[in-house]
C-alpha cells in the first residue's frame, strides 16, 4: 500500500507528484493471477487558518483527487498560493492562478486581459528610411503609440 505522505503543512513538490516513490507510475500492473490489494489513498488538507476544516478538505480532495498519485497519499494546503499542478481551488485571496478572483481579473466583463499590438503608424508621408521626425503628425503618432517622443529610437 503506497503510504508516502508529506509532512503536514509542507507544500507539495511537483516533482514528487510526478515521480512516485515506488516508481510504479500512475498505472498498477497487476501482474495477473492471484489477489492483490491496491490500498486506499488519502488526500489530506494541511495548513489552517482560513475556512473550516471540512471545506479545506473538500478543496484538497477536489484539487488533489482528480489524478493518480503515484506516491500514494497526498497532503497539501489547498489554499496555498503555490500551485502544484492540481486543479486550482482559488483560496479566496487574489491573486491565484486560474480564477478570476479579483476585480483586476474580472474586469472587462470577466474576460481575460488582452493586449493589442499598437498599430504601426499609418502610411508615412516620408520616404522609407527617412526620419519620421519630419512631420509633426508622425512625431505625435510615435509619441502616442510607443510612449516616447523619439520614434524609431528603439
Amino acid at each position: 500500500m503506497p503510504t508516502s505522505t508529506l509532512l503536514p503543512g509542507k507544500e507539495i513538490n511537483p516533482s514528487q507528484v510526478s515521480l512516485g516513490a515506488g516508481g510504479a507510475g500512475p498505472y498498477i500492473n497487476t501482474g495477473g493471477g492471484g489477489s492483490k490489494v491496491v490500498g486506499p489513498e488519502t488526500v489530506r488538507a494541511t495548513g489552517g487558518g482560513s475556512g473550516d476544516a471540512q471545506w479545506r478538505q473538500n478543496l484538497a480532495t477536489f484539487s488533489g483527487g482528480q489524478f493518480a498519485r503515484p506516491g500514494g497519499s497526498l497532503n497539501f494546503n489547498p489554499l496555498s498560493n503555490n500551485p502544484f499542478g492540481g486543479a486550482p481551488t482559488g483560496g479566496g485571496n487574489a491573486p491565484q492562478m486560474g480564477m478570476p478572483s479579483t476585480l483586476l481579473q474580472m474586469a472587462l466583463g470577466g474576460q481575460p486581459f488582452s493586449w493589442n499590438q499598437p498599430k504601426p503608424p499609418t502610411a508615412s508621408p516620408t520616404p522609407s528610411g527617412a526620419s519620421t521626425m519630419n512631420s509633426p503628425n508622425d512625431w505625435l503618432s510615435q509619441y502616442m503609440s510607443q510612449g516616447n517622443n523619439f520614434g524609431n529610437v528603439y
Partner: protein
Amino acid sequence: MGQTPTQQTSPAEVIASINLGYNAYTDPTLTTARQWASSSNVFAGAFGFVQRCRFANVVTTATNAYSASGAPFLSLKFAALPALGNYLLGDVGTKMWSFDTGAAYSATARPELLAAVPGISYAGPWSREFLQNAIYEMNGVVKQAGRNANFALVQDWGIDAPDTSPQVTINAGATAAITNIQRTDGTVIVNLAAPLTVPGGDGIGMVNVSGVTDTSFNGTFVVLTGSGTTILTWTQAGQNTGAIAAGNVDVSITKSVGRSYAWAWENVNDSHISAPSPSTQFIQYVVQNGVIDLIEQGTVTVAGTNVIGVGTSFSPAWVGKNLWIDGTGAQPQIIAVISATQMTLATPSGGSGAFTVYDPQSTNIRLYQTADGGATYFRVQRNAFDPSQTTLVAAGLEFFDNAQAEPPNFPFTTETSQLFNVPPPVGRFVKEYQGRLIVYGVPGLGQTFFYSNNELTNFGLPQESFAPLNQVTLPIQNADINGMAEFPGSLIIWSDKQDMFRLTGLLSDNSTATATQQGAQIAALPYNLGCASPFSVALTPLGAIWVTTNAEIWLYTDRYAPRNIGRPVQDILSNIPSAQLSQCRGAYYHTQNRNWYVLSVANGATNNILLVLDLDLLAANGSPSYFVFDMATNQPAWFRFDIPCTWAEPVYETGGAVRLMLTGINDVIQDTDYMTGLFGTEVEVPDAGFTTHAWGNDSAFMLKRPSWFRFQTNQEPQLLSLQGWSFQTQGIDDDVYTFAFPLKLTHTPGVNDTATLCGNPFLAKGEPFRFSPELYRVGGVNFVMGRRFRFVVNFPKLIGVNYQFRSIQIGFGSTPPR
C-alpha cells in the same frame, strides 16, 4: 331673497396631517407643527392621523412545547413550505426553534447536529435564505440546511466528498464455456460447461458474455440467479431465441492501460450527490476482477470514546461525521480529532477493524470508473448505504467489478462524477442572488464571496454545491464584505469600511475551462459608503435601505446616486455605541396601510429603539431620483418605537395576516403592529405620545394669545378622561420661555376641559355645540401664550383600541366659531 346673516367668527387655526414624524435635525425655529420634536410608540402615515402602537406577545414561555432559555431571541426568519405551513424560525441562547403560525405558534425544537462537538456554537444571529423548499443557514460556525415541516429535518449543507480513494482488491478471473444459451421472455438462461462463481453473487455480480454467434447475447449483465453453479440467468430484453451452443461467460477483465475508480455519497431524499472521492490509480487488469471497498486507510480500535488508529490518517474534517467499523457497524459521532491516529466519539462504544466515516444524511453510494485509460469517471454502480449493517457488503460499502465493458455499454452510464459538488465554506452570511446562494463572512477570507453552482452541477443540488473557483475577491484593502442587496439584474456589495460595488450580468460557474466565459462584471461605486451590518439591509419598493458604517441611513435605487434618508433621526443614530453599530437590524414590512422600513438600533448595550420609516410618505415626494427635502417643511417620515428589539421580521401567517415580529425580551417574540383578532396577548403601551414642533415659527415676530384649544381624536370625547388621554400646550416667547423651558399648560380631560368646568355636573360629558372634554379654554389659571406653540399629546396605555389623534384647533375668539 334674504339670506341669514353670517355670524361673526373669531380667527382660528387647524393643525392637521401631523404625520411628518420625528425630526431632530432641522433647526426648531424652521420646522412646522406637522413635524415632531419627540415621540415614542406612535406612528402616522399618508392617512394623516397619528396612531398609538399596539404590541402583543406572540411567543412566550407559555407557548406550547417551548422551553425557556432566559435570553432574547437573536435572529428570526420567516419561511413557508407549500402544503405544510408558514413558520417563524428563531434562535435563542443555543437553541433553534420553529414556530408554526398556523398552530398558535406552537414550538418545535430543531435538531442541532453538532451540539456535542466542543467549540461548536448554535448561538445567533443566523443568516438564512430560502431556496427550493429548504432553508439554508449559517452563523459563522455551523452551516446547515433545513427541510420538511418546521424545517426540522436538519442536514449538513451539502455532502462532503469522500476523502480517500477506494481500496481495490484484484482477484483472478474465471471463464466457463457455454454449452447452450437461450433467451425466453426477456430472461437469458445459460448452461455452462463448469460452475462459475460470480463475485458479488446473484443480483449484484456481473458476467461478461462473448463469442455467442447471436451477438445480441454478447455483453455484460448482472446475474439474476445461479452464481456458483453451471446455470446462470439474467434479464435481457430481446427476442426469444432457440438454444445456441457457442461462446463463453466470464468474470474477467483485461485492460491495456487500466481502469480507475472513484465514488461519491448520495442523499436520495434530497437528490444530492457529493463530489467524488480521490481516484484510484489505473488498475491494469489481466484476466482479473476487482472488489472495491470504500474504506479509509488503516484500522481502528474503539475503547470507550477513544478511537485509536493504526496506519490511519484521521482528518479534522471528520468532526461531526459518524464512524463505521467493519464487523461492528455504525458508531457514534466523531466530536474531536486529536491526531492522525487518535480521535474521540460522542458516546462510548467498541469495535475494531477497517472503517469509514460518513455523513448521516447519506443514503446511497455511487461508484464511478473510467474507460480503459480514460479520464472521465462514469457512474457504473450504485448501492444503498445502510450503516446499521455490520459488513462492508451489507452496508453497501463494497462493489464488485467483473465487467469487461467499455463505455457506453452497460454498466457504464452517461452520468459523470460531479467534481464541482463541493459544499460551501462556513461563513457568517448567506444571500440569494439569481437563484444562487452567496456565502460571505468566511473566517480569514473576508474579502471574498463564494457562490453556488448552476451549470457545473449536472446531478445533485446546485445550491448545495460551490465549485472551488466560484468565488470573487474584492479589492477592499483591509475591509471585509459586510452586506449585499439584490436588485433585479444587479447585486450591490458593501464592505465594512467605505466600499460599495455593483455586480451586474449573469453569474456563471467558474472553472479553469470556463474562466474566459464569465459574464458578470463588478464596478466599484464612487460613493464611499460601507455597511454597518448585512442585517441592516432591506430591499424596499423604493430601493435598498441600509445603515452605513458611519451610522447613517441611505437609500440606493440602483439607478441614481444614494440618498441619505436618515437625517431626521441622525441624533438617534449618532447615539448608537460604536460597538453596537453592527447590531442594527433592518426589515421591510408592508401590510394594509403600513409600508415601512424598520430599523432596530441600540441606545445602550442592546437594541431598544425601533425606527420606522414610512415609505408611502417618502414615495409621495416623487421618485427617488429627485427626492427634494428641505427638511424644514418636508422630510422622510420617521417614527420611533421604544421597545426591546434585537431583530425585526415580517411574518406572513398561514391565516393570511402579515405581522411585524420583534424580539428583545427574554423568551418573547412580540408583534409590534398588533391588530384585534390576531393571535397573541396584547400588552399595554405606556408613555406613548409625541410633541409637535412649534406652530408659529413663520410669524414668530408676533405674540399670540389663543383663547381655546381643541384636541381631536378618534375617540368619543366623553371617553378621553376614562381612557387616560392628556394634552399640553407649550408657549415659547423667545424672551423668557424658550424651547428648553417653555410655558406649559396641561389639558387633562375631566380636569380642566370646557365640559368639566362648565359649572353643570350634568354636562360633564359635554354639551352639543358648546362644551366638550376635548375643548379647552385659556384663561385664568389656564394660561398660555407665546410667539410659538408646541403641543404634546399623551396617548392612553390601554389595550384593545386603535387610539388615533387627528388634529389641533387653535382659536383666538371667546368661543369656537359658529
